């Protein structure tokens, strides 16, 4: 058992950081003794920090018509490290377990998952609807989250504001919300998002501006 622990903690030490592109694990304590999350679940000082803090939001289905959008949308938790992300992800229901009309939102801290938020108002969303319920939505949603918090989905800093999962009767929708509607910035993000969602050549990914969100007949700004 101790051997297994040692093997598992090798990757977490400062000396054994594998690839050069990977972020170095940081010490959150000035103490020289390195303790990983496997040594102690509460007192460990080696973590993999994320570039941004992220907040998980949840929209519960409306049971009462008097409930407004703001009543239904609640922040769950904010995190800033890979370890925390996995701890949260393992503790909450999977995408496929959510009830109908429920949403998960993962957004940068201090950005609300609303069109009206100043960070979102000029942007839009890459959007894909999975109408076939046989897909592995848990895997696709996880890949989306990892690409967002790992920030490999974007070239520019902080162009992606967050990701949204909508569970509906007709389809399950995964969206990527962006800060701007700049085609030059959006195109590479869309191409990477296609790979994350494992879309086939026949599937098309559409970008809709938030300004056109109210207009159902609006055409997508960009399609890849």
């Amino acid at each position, binding site marked *: 058992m101790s051997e297994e622990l040692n093997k*598992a903690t090798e*990757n*977490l030490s400062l000396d054994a950081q594998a*690839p050069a*592109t*990977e*972020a*170095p694990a940081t010490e959150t304590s000035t103490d020289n003794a390195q303790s*990983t*999350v*496997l040594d102690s*679940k*509460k007192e*460990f000082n080696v973590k*993999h*920090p*994320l*570039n941004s803090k992220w907040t998980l939001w*949840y929209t*519960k*289905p409306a049971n009462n018509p008097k409930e407004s959008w703001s009543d239904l949308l609640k922040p*769950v*938790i904010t*995190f800033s*490290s*890979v*370890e*925390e*992300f*996995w*701890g*949260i*992800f*393992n*503790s*909450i*229901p999977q995408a496929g*377990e*959510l*009830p*109908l009309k*429920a949403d998960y939102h993962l957004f940068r801290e201090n950005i609300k998952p609303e069109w009206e938020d100043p960070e979102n108002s000029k942007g839009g969303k890459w959007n894909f609807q999975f109408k076939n319920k046989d897909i592995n939505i848990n895997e696709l949603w996880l*890949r989306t989250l*990892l*690409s967002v*918090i*790992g*920030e*490999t989905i974007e070239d520019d*800093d902080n162009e992606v504001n967050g990701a949204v999962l909508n569970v509906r009767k007709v389809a399950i929708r995964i969206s990527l919300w962006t800060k701007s509607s700049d085609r030059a910035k959006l195109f590479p993000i869309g191409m990477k998002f296609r790979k*994350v969602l494992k879309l086939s050549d026949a599937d098309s990914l559409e970008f809709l501006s938030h300004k056109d969100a109210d207009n159902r007949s609006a055409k997508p700004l960009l399609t890849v």
Partner: protein
Amino acid sequence: MAKYEIEQLIQLRETAYVPTSVDFAEFTKSILEERERQAQQEEESGFTGGRRRSSIGIRPKFKTNRPKRAPAPQPDADGWVTLDNHRKSASGEEAANEKQKFKDSLKSDTTQVKVRPNNKNLGSSKPVDSRDIIADQQKSTFNAFAALGDESDEESEEDDE
């Protein structure tokens, strides 16, 4: 700027650390309860998916104008069934008697109905007088001589000018 590939992040899954600031058990419980509630509601409503499926729930009833079927012929005392159409003959002495009987019934006083015109809703309750009709005729008629006279006047005026 640190970037993590998806595969790198997946390798770090074992290092998960659950923050204690949120009661995830309570959060999970509320979501699963909501899911169960929706499933129960769906069962109660009898709707199991699909859109307006005719095989589930109330079917529409379409009116059809089918002719009514005649009752099946019953066997008589001897066990015979007659399929002939029994219609009364329109000729013969018996038929003539019946026709006369019907005509007599119409002539009888008890069956005669007096028809009175109901003129209370008309413009005038008085019966229409034939002299009034004459009075309503067009009074002005075309007078050819008068018309010729007008033309001559116009010509004379032009001559004067």
